[in-house]
């Protein structure tokens, strides 16, 4: 991607204001971005051929697959080899996709091997978390960094279920909410620090994991959710972050927090939290949608919007009332939304 004309203009203005900036005339090849279709096409081919090749190897029935030590060593060799290739060779989509496939393959081999050697779920999963953290730091692949985050969250959840510690899920959830809030609200600081290289994949991975976790934990009436998660606590975390975010937004837009608009927004958030107490995903999706809107991140906006639709469907599906009552609730919500829309249009002057 060449720096756009607008970016060069902004940089010139920064230079005029005596900020330290790079000379963009000589930096035309900054951060070249490849269209998603090319990445997707090459990635698909690399993955499909890796899987087909793997099937071929498995069908040959080599003896080393039955030896847990060799399997572990093979797994780690794949990981290290993939890292070496990825970090030392010239950046190419094809090489990065092939190394990604081999790295993940190596992780699977290593986990199977370690599981067989240790014969302990907690040791295997604990090691997986460490390996993922190591890979995030050392393997320069945005896709793997993105995938490592849900892998860590999933490992922690399996550990929670395996250790049978009640309501430990809520601690993981609290950790995720705090981390999400910190990362979304401090992007400028993170991108300017050593976190810059990891920021985008980690925030995307964490946000998607959060959405999926809420769906698993509260979208279904499984025993897993009732044993390891407290629904009202989850709603409380999300409402708290939402209110904190609203306060920051109001400050940024010079709106008095204790003005009627400020108080109205916060009361509305709490009321919404009470109404959707059993389904925290709805408020979480709205929160993520607004956070991504503020950062102009269209990808997460679309993801959170789809999540919002999904959570809303589940909310109505799980309501223990007749279809007639559900339809009346839906229509009332529709009327309420439209009234809110026209009220907002009318009081536009006061907000501005």
């Amino acid at each position, binding site marked *: *991607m060449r*720096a756009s004309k*607008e*970016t060069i203009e*902004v*940089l010139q203005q*920064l230079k005029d204001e005596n*900020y*330290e*900036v*790079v000379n963009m005339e000589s930096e035309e090849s*900054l*951060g070249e971005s*490849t*269209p998603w*279709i*090319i990445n*997707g*096409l*090459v990635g*698909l*081919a690399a993955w*499909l*051929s*890796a899987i*087909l*090749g793997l*099937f*071929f190897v498995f069908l040959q029935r080599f003896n080393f697959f039955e030896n847990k030590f060799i399997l572990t060593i093979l797994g780690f060799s794949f990981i290290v080899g993939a890292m070496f290739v990825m970090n030392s060779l010239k950046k190419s*989509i*094809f090489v990065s996709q092939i190394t990604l496939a081999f790295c993940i393959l190596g992780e699977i081999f290593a986990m199977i091997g370690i599981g067989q050697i240790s014969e302990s779920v907690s040791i295997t999963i604990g090691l997986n978390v460490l390996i993922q953290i190591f890979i995030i730091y050392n393997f320069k692949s945005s896709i793997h960094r993105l995938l490592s985050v849900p892998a860590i969250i999933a490992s922690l959840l399996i550990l929670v279920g395996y250790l049978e510690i009640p309501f430990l899920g809520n601690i993981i959830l609290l950790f995720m909410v705090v981390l999400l809030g910190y990362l979304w609200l401090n*992007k*400028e600081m993170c*991108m*300017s620090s050593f976190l*810059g290289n990891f*920021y985008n994949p980690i925030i995307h991975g964490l946000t998607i994991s959060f959405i999926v976790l809420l769906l698993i934990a509260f979208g279904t009436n499984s025993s897993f959710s009732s044993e390891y998660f407290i629904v009202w606590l989850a709603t409380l975390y999300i409402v708290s972050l939402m209110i904190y975010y609203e306060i920051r937004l109001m400050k*940024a837009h010079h709106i008095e927090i204790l003005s009627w608009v400020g108080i109205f927004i916060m009361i509305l958030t709490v009321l919404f939290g009470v109404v959707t107490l059993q389904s925290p995903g709805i408020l979480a999706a709205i929160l993520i949608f607004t956070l991504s*809107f503020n950062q*102009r991140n*269209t990808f997460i*906006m679309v993801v959170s919007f789809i999540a919002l639709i999904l959570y809303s469907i589940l909310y109505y599906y799980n309501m223990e009332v*007749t279809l*007639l009552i*559900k*339809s*009346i*609730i*839906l*229509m009332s*919500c*529709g009327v309420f*939304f*439209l009234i*809110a*829309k026209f009220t*907002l*249009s009318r009081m536009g002057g006061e*907000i*501005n």
Partner: protein
Amino acid sequence: MIDMKVSKTGHELFELAKEKKIDKLGLSRGLELMRFYPSKSEWKKMISTLLLFGGVAFLITGTIFFFAYNWQELTKYTKFLLIEVALILSTVVVLWKNPVSIIGKACLITSIMLVGVMLAVFGQVYQTGADSYALFVSWAFLISGWVFVSEFLPIWMGYIALINLASSLYWNQMMSDFSFIKFFQILILINIFFLVLFEVLKIKGTHWINGRWFPRVLTAWIYLCFSLGMINLIGEYEFFRDNDLAALLLLLMFVTGLGITFYYYQHIKDITILGFALLSFIIIFTFLMVKLGAGLLFLALIVLVQGGSAGWWLNKLNAEWRRD
């Protein structure tokens, strides 16, 4: 809802900060200068649009659920009265506000959906026993006029999806000698018609035809139909037993598909559409190799070579087009 230019510039500034080409203070000031963070009016517009379309979506789903409940207390006349009053009201708002305004579009979507509800209730009340394709065909026919005046691509996309659905159901329910090859031919023809219509209107400078998402979605669907049709032809077809003419037509259509790809390559320069075409070709060619009895390792190699060359060529092309 989002200004893509501002979004792109902002992300470029973040990239520069990541590569330590500007510091945090410079980044903050740069984002402020380009108004990266949405203003109060942008927030208001976003919330207002969401409330409008959310409200309409809730009203429509509520109405569908209400009639799906088939409340026995309501007489058939009351049911029709309720739907028709709602239909008239939303259509009056469309006429009052103009179909191209945001409220007009929301009400037009409501009217379009209410026509579907009315047809479903008609079937429910009179137990017509008609095949389900009849409902979708009537629905598509009745809303055609509104779609033509809507000047709104999402409504067009919904309309095309409805026509595809109606055609699929018709083919499934009415054709005794159901053939996948013919089925995909029909779908390809329908969608090529709309694709050509879009491009002609775009070339003529029609103001509401903008962006590339519409032809991309359509071509993705067309190439999927091509791929499935060709896979069916390769996998199931037996010479001299099946309809050779249908197979020949499909092959001709595939050549047409290549023609479309060439057009996009030469004139429109849309890398995404070229990518769809190559993906379709890779799928068909790999399936042909499977049919010819290729082994796993050979298949892995073939996929690798095809994907690698396609990616290399597209990347090269993309760089060339950018330089231009």
